[in-house]
Structures are given as structure tokens and as C-alpha cells.
């Protein structure tokens, strides 16, 4: 593996990376950031439930009745998908961090496999983000054509926490995209 550095690109070995390994520090940092962000998104959405009361007038003559209503993340399949996708991404970030640190300066195939799986994570996280975003938008604004009423006027804390989780998940998916770009730049620099 050392032969590649000595071939013709003299004087670049010292600048290339910290230590002998092919893995740059920025790659590890972004991977750790992706781990933190996806974990935070999964936790924030997983601990998301709100119970309030809604006053409903059943009979016009009687005073309005207070009905207890609950909103949980489990009630919406798109949010379940978002939590599961972020959990998978977090688990993968841990595994790939361990594998990248262990294989530092070793085989090249490890970086290739990790980059390939990074792209799968990008697709997974972006699709979960799209699903939760679409469903959240319906919950926020309703859909008059389909007779689906909005729910965020009642469950405001639930909606805010969901929005925070979606922002965290989006940042996590941008981190994974950045990892793919960094890996490609690292390979392209060797030309």
C-alpha cells in the first residue's frame, strides 16, 4: 500500500493525513457528528407524546365536555419510519466508526464498502425525511380536498418536537452526504 504514495506524487505524503492511516480526521469527525445527530433525532421523536383535553360541544344546550386526547409518535406510520431509519443510521454510524478506526492504514476495500453503505444511508434518511415532512405538513395545514383536518392547533408541543426531530434528522442526512463527498475527494486527490 505504501507504493502508491511513492510512485510519483513526491512531497505530498507529509501533508496528506495525520498519521499513517488513509482516513482523514475530517471523515471521522463528520461520522461522529452523524452518529450524534441521528441518535438525537431518534430520541427526540421517540420520546414525543402529548396529552391534552379538547372541549367538545356534543349537545348545544349543555356546557362543552372536556375530552382527553393523546398524540403519540406511534400513531403515525411515517414517524415510526423516521425513528427506525434514524436508529438504523445511528447503529451504522457506530459500526462504521469502529471499523474505520480499526482498519486505519490497512485495506482499501474497507473504505470502499463503507462509502457504498453511506450512500444507502443517505437514500434511507432522505426518504424518511420526505415521508415525515409530508405527513407533518398535512398535520400542520390539513388538506381540505381530502377532508383531512389539521391537528397541530391542538397538539402544539407534539408538532414542535416533531419539527425539531426532523431538523436533526435532516442534518444527519446532510452529514452522510458530506461523508460520500469527502470519500470521493480523498480518492480523487490520489490522481
Amino acid at each position, binding site marked *: 500500500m505504501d507504493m*502508491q504514495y511513492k*510512485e*510519483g*506524487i*513526491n*512531497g*505530498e505524503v507529509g501533508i496528506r493525513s495525520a498519521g499513517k492511516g488513509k482516513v482523514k480526521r475530517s471523515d471521522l469527525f463528520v461520522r461522529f457528528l452523524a452518529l450524534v445527530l441521528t441518535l438525537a433525532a431518534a430520541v427526540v421523536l421517540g420520546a414525543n407524546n402529548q396529552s391534552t383535553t379538547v372541549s367538545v360541544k356534543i349537545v348545544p344546550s349543555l356546557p362543552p365536555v372536556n375530552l382527553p386526547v393523546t*398524540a403519540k409518535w406511534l*400513531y*403515525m*406510520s*411515517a414517524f415510526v*419510519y423516521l425513528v427506525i431509519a434514524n436508529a438504523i443510521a445511528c447503529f451504522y454510524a457506530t459500526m462504521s466508526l469502529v471499523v474505520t478506526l480499526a482498519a486505519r492504514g490497512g485495506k*482499501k476495500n474497507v473504505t*470502499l464498502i463503507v*462509502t*457504498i453503505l453511506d*450512500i*444507502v444511508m*443517505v*437514500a*434511507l434518511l*432522505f*426518504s*424518511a*425525511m*420526505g*415521508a*415525515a*415532512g*409530508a*405527513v407533518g*405538513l*398535512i*398535520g400542520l395545514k390539513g*388538506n381540505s*380536498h*381530502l*377532508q*383531512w*383536518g389539521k*391537528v397541530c392547533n391542538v397538539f402544539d408541543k407534539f408538532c414542535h418536537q416533531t419539527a425539531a426531530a426532523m431538523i436533526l434528522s435532516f442534518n444527519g*442526512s446532510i452529514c452522510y*452526504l458530506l461523508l*460520500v*463527498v469527502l*470519500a*470521493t*475527494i480523498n*480518492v*480523487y486527490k*490520489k*490522481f
Partner: protein
Amino acid sequence: MASYDTTFSPAAAAEEPLKRSAPPPEYKGDCSPVVDVALRVLLFLTALVSIIVMVTSNQTKLIPLAPGLAIRLPAKFEHSPAFIYFVVALSVACLYSIITAVLSLLSAMKPSGCSAKMQFHFVMFDALLLGIVAAATGAAGGVAYIGFKGNSHTGWSKICNTYDSFCFHVAASILLSLISSITLLLLVWLSIYVLYKKTTRR
């Protein structure tokens, strides 16, 4: 091959005379342009058919509101912002696939073979487009799932029992966009694999 020299550091300039005298012929078959163009054509076809199926999904049905009173209510894809985003994202993918298929074909016909710079750019833009198309698939899939099953907790009723042709169109469109996403994934894998192979060959 001459285009590489301008991006190299001056330390590699000593190798220039060696490169110019013996252009390596094996690089031509190194980047598999046939698979690349075939995948881009597949991406174009699936995105185009998906858009057409989604846009022609309108259906109007007679909904009985009260006994003796029935009104005609249409179901169009424009009624949901998720479907509008779906159509926009897939048209972007369609246009992108045409441009990159032409670029890939043109660079494959050059005598020096395909360049690493192009593969590098393809990886970045393909990955970005993969994110956009995957988000569109997820958004349309999420809304379609609610329309299919309803959601008793929020009081959102299902619509697929009344608008069956509309739901069928939307489901077919989402399936095709899933194939588009997988095609984009394969394209990114191919470009990365080509870049890694070129590095190890040197």
C-alpha cells in the same frame, strides 16, 4: 490524458515525458460506459413514465352526501403538496438523466477514454439527486399510505375505497420512482467503483 497534467502538482511534472510517449490503452475499458449510459437511460424512462402516470391520475366520482343528494368530487394529484413535489422532483431527475447520458456518451467516444474528473462530478450530483428522488418517493409514499389505510387517531379517513383508479395510478407511480432511486443508487456505486479501480491501477 493531457487534461490531467494541469491539475497535478509540479512535483509530478517530471513524469510528463513518460506519460506523453506511451498513452496507456487499458484505461479505455476501465470505466464501463455502456453500463453507465444504460442505467441513465433506465432512469430517464422510469422517471418519465412515473410522471406521466401521476399526472394522468385524475378521477371524478359521485359522492353521496345525504340520501338523495350526491355531488361530483374529483381527486387530482394537485390536491396534495407531496404529489406536486413528487412530480417536480422526478422531472428534475428526468432532465438530469438526459444531460448526463449525453455527457457520458460523448466522453466515452473520446479516444482518451473517460476522465476521472467526470466520474467525480457524477458521484456528487448523482448522490444529491438520489437524496431528492428518495425524498419524493418517501413523501408520496407517506401520503399514499394514509390515503390507503386512513388514520383513526387523527380522524383522517381513507380515500382508496372510493377512488380506486386514482390510488392505483399513484401506487404505480411510486413503484416506478422507487426503481428510479435504485437506479441512481447503482449509478453512484458504479462511479465510485470506477474511481477506486482507477486509483489502484495506478
